[in-house]
């Protein structure tokens, strides 16, 4: 990632004109233009580069009334639409950063480059303020790297996870789902429908993904706000049901 020379605190670049001022009005719902980009993880990388250019006017702060934050993970293989979904529901333009993976994890997961002591995993995230007192963060991360300490940290304290699946490549989602199960993170599955997605029956999908009967499975279009919010609602409803059953 582009860590540039961090000299003295750089003053916001006053010459900047590329619509930065438009962010001030905080209308929230915008900023999701052009998110019909399925190559979400590539997109995320690009986002990191521009982060050097800190300009205070582009920072949209959380409302002062917000007392705390909760988080939900959005997991799935690269290109499944995580960043698209996050961008569709987020009130801020989705941000991207990179979580560092420790040496131990690197040794297991990066056999190709054994000398590399650390590596990073892209982390895209967005934010939704709920009811003026609570802010929900959606963290999107590819889940194929098992034993990833960063993943474990991320999962700690999460309400649950939305596992995105592309029916054109179901196997690509196995790792993320398996990892959620290993870490005991409750989740719901959302099939992101692509124009050329093969249609499967729900039973076939469930059996292919080896889902438990109570795990929700919904079809969504990550490019659509309503559809994406509904996918999140299916997850939270599931979490509530799970808690109700336990008590």
């Amino acid at each position: 990632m582009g860590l540039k020379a961090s000299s003295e605190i750089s003053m916001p670049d006053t010459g900047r004109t590329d619509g930065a001022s438009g962010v001030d009005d905080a209308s929230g719902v915008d900023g999701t233009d052009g998110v019909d980009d399925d190559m979400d993880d590539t997109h995320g990388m690009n986002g990191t580069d521009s982060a050097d250019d800190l300009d205070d006017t582009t920072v949209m702060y959380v409302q002062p009334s917000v007392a705390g934050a909760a988080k939900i993970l959005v997991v799935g293989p690269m290109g499944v639409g995580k960043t698209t979904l996050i961008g569709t529901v987020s009130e801020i333009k989705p941000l991207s950063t990179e979580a560092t993976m420790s040496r131990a994890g690197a040794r297991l997961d990066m056999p190709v480059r054994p000398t590399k002591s650390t590596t990073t995993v892209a982390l895209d995230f967005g934010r939704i303020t709920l009811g003026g007192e609570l802010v929900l963060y959606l963290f999107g991360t590819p889940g194929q790297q098992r034993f990833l300490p960063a993943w474990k940290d991320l999962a700690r304290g999460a309400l649950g996870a939305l596992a995105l699946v592309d029916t054109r490549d179901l196997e690509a989602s196995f790792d993320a789902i398996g990892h959620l199960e290993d870490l005991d993170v409750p989740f719901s599955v959302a099939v992101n429908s692509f124009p050329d997605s093969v249609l499967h029956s729900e039973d076939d999908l469930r059996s292919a993904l080896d889902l438990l009967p109570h795990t929700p499975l919904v079809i969504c279009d990550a490019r659509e706000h309503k559809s994406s919010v509904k996918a999140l609602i299916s997850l939270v409803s599931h979490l509530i049901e799970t808690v109700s059953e336990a008590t």
Partner: protein
Amino acid sequence: MIEPGEERTTAAVRPYVITRGRAGSSRDALPLETLVKSSGSALSPALQPEYRRIVRCCQGLLSVAEVAAHLGQPPAVVQVLLADLIDWGHIVARPPIRVAKRADMDLLRKVLDGLESKL
């Protein structure tokens, strides 16, 4: 592997140097969704630029993840620097609302209601 006397000035190294190797020790890492804000206290002129940039970024409430993304710094580094700033009273934090054994019905209902209001 820095040779004795060798001066590393590249910024890619510096954030890790300033954390004195603490980045990545995830045991007590500040969760990424922790909300932080500048306390408004006066900063010592001796405070290093990396810390100042963070305080400047935190004029309003932001999550640790957002601070890292806006500054283009690895979260592992920002987590450590923010923890220092919290210790020194320059930053105040609102810890994340965690579900105690995921049985916090109130919180889940608030999330559900909030999401439904977005439809």
